């Protein structure tokens, strides 16, 4: 991890805290609204953005349907060009492979390109455990690493930090006197650049993730803004890439589609500054040893689920985070996972099967803003619904008969039984009208008990009125008049 594992908590508890952090709220509101506007402009200027999205979805769906074939082709072509491919079933295997590869070079430091996949498996900690220090070279990842915090956003990991906080971190880490560094963004970037230059020139091992890997030729691709990816993948003698198996694409033609979809959806640019492709090794030029570590870590389980496999379409653009009204208020740490926001709410519970992750599918109003902007058309609300069903059904299996004793489960069963019979439903309406009486003031109830208490902390709720619709209708039918 760049700065540590996110704290595992139930989403509602984490959100409760995050919502009170006024600095975080302001940083997030400003950053997300700015990028939202930009993304809209960047996508609307294209003649057929919707057609591009559909093409992206179709390529991903096809690739996933033949994932074994494309992964084999990828391996074949990487090896043919002088690289080596390693298959890692899970995080432990992947870490063991990378540890061994790094130790074999004798290097005690490695430079890293931002890779959430390496965060997912906890690679930095695994390297540290064998005496190897991993230096993050992406500016925002460097910031969160120095702060010993986990990233809070897929694209802009330090979105929760402002420049005063960053300056404080740099003064400490780089041993600078306060007079030597202002909090102007250009000055902060220059300080980071000087700090990182030394690291780039000394490093013997570079570690990256991959945005895409082209099966047709074995070319691996990193899409970035700062140029540190270019440095890490060309300067060191040894390059190790850790890549989730779902990142493979069939051919170069697919890259026409994704290189249009990704920059416009993520940084809202027509084109990002640096896109790097490398295939294997070339004697005398660039890394002389290239290792591709293919990571499963639960992905093939996701693939096995018809409703949920579209989760693997994700190209990690973070457009969904930037339009999500929930993410915009609670930030990434509240999701307790390296994958936050709407995509995190579906990916995290599938990759990390924990009780805390199981609260994530409920961290949404199903508003659908994410689905509208997803460049590969992941129907996130649909997958959320399926994961909610999974959550309830697994709890019922786990608790057996006791499940019905839980407030929500018992209430839902009761409500379903009431709604199943019209006469029962009408009786419940009349009963509610009677029972509410002591709590009604001027037609509203201001305090609800138990499971419903959260409502009335900030809202009133209307009382059941003297006549329901159906009572009015019946009275009207009986009297035979059409007067209201």
């Amino acid at each position, binding site marked *: 991890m760049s700065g540590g594992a996110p704290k595992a908590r139930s989403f509602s508890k984490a959100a*409760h805290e995050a919502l009170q952090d006024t600095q975080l709220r302001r940083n997030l509101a400003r950053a997300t609204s700015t990028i939202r506007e930009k993304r809209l402009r960047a996508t609307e200027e294209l003649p057929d953005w919707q057609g591009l999205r559909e093409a992206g979805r179709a390529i991903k769906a096809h690739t996933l349907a033949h994932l074994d074939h494309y992964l084999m082709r990828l391996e074949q072509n990487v090896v043919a060009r002088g690289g080596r491919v390693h298959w890692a079933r899970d995080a432990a295997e992947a870490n063991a492979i990378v540890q061994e590869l790094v130790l074999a070079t004798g290097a005690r430091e490695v430079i890293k390109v931002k890779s959430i996949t390496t965060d997912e498996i906890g690679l930095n900690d695994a390297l540290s455990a064998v005496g190897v220090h991993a230096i993050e070279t992406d500016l925002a990842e460097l910031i969160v690493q120095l702060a010993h915090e986990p990233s809070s956003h897929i694209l802009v990991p330090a979105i929760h930090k402002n420049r005063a906080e960053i300056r404080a971190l740099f003064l400490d880490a780089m041993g600078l006197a306060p007079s030597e560094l202002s909090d102007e963004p250009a000055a902060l970037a220059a300080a980071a650049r000087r700090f990182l230059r030394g690291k780039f020139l000394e490093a013997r091992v570079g570690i990256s993730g991959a945005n895409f890997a082209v099966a047709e030729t074995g070319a691996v691709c990193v899409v970035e803004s700062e140029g540190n990816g270019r440095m890490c993948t060309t300067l060191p003698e040894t390059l190790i890439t850790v890549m989730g198996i779902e990142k493979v694409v069939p051919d170069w033609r697919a890259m026409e589609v994704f290189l249009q979809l990704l920059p416009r959806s993520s940084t809202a640019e027509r084109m990002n500054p640096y896109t790097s492709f490398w295939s294997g090794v070339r004697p005398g030029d660039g890394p002389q040893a290239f290792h591709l570590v293919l990571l499963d870590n639960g992905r093939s389980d996701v693939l096995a689920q018809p409703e949920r496999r579209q989760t693997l379409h994700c190209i990690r653009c973070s457009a969904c985070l930037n339009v999500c009204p929930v993410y915009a208020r609670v930030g990434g740490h509240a999701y307790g996972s390296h994958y936050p926001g709407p995509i995190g709410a579906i990916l995290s519970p599938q990759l990390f099967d924990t009780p805390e992750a199981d609260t994530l599918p409920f961290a949404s109003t199903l508003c659908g803003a994410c689905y509208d902007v997803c460049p590969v058309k992941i129907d996130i609300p649909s997958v959320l619904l399926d994961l909610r069903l999974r959550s309830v059904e697994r709890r019922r299996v786990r608790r057996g008969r006791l499940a019905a004793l839980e407030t929500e489960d018992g209430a839902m069963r009761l409500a*379903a039984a009431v*709604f199943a019979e019209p006469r029962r439903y009408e009786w419940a309406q009349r009963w509610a009208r009677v029972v509410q009486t002591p709590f009604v003031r001027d037609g509203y109830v201001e305090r609800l008990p138990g499971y419903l208490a*959260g409502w009335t902390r900030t809202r009133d709720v209307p009382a059941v009125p003297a006549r329901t619709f159906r009572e009015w209708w019946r009275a009207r039918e009986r009297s035979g008049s059409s007067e209201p």
Partner: protein
Amino acid sequence: MRIALFIPCYVDTLFPGAGRATVEVLERLGHELVFPEEQTCCGQMHVNTGYQRDVIPLVRNFVRTFGPYDQVVAPSASCVGEVREIYPRLARLSRNPELVAAVEALAPRVHELTSFLVDTLEVEDVGAYFPHRVTFHPTCHSQRVLRIGDRPQRLLAQVRGIELVALPSAEECCGFGGTFSVKNADTSSAMLASKVANILQTGAEVCAAADNSCLMHIGGALHRQRTGVRTLHVAEILASTEAHPWVPA
């Protein structure tokens, strides 16, 4: 036209005014209405909370109740969205091919009120009069599931005397989300705070929408905060005429 009324459970129980207004508007346009009393609830709350299997009996009840009718109309984009988009999924979950077929046949005949007025009845001026300042909140289900677009606004624009004011950041979710409003009450309230602030910014007297679900949440805060702004369903505005103008209850 003979139209069967689908009056959602919370409209029936808490907001009967929206149901009465729906009757008023459709009868004023000359149509015959039926209210099949066997209807109860579409089950959306259960589905969205993970209790999908529990409400398969409700799908059966819905199909039994409304199957006989050519046109079914409801003053609720979210409930119609449930029937059209989610019922096929629930029917598949039931593994009953007859139910799957019945849902497939019925769903296209179930309409949200404003879509029905504009698309099926091809009317935008329903003869309404409502001399108040109104802002419109486009609910997420109506925009992203049913995609009714600006149909409600087109109907409101024809209302005599109305002063329509655009709602800033209208497309942002109000934070209701069914049980999300209680299970994640803090986040729900934070989202609601933004929606209320935007409503107050318009200076409107009324916030209208095509769904009483969101309005219950928005109106709950507008009332709690004593803002002096109220919520009304679009139907209630369309039902108001010069002969029988809407008055606060």
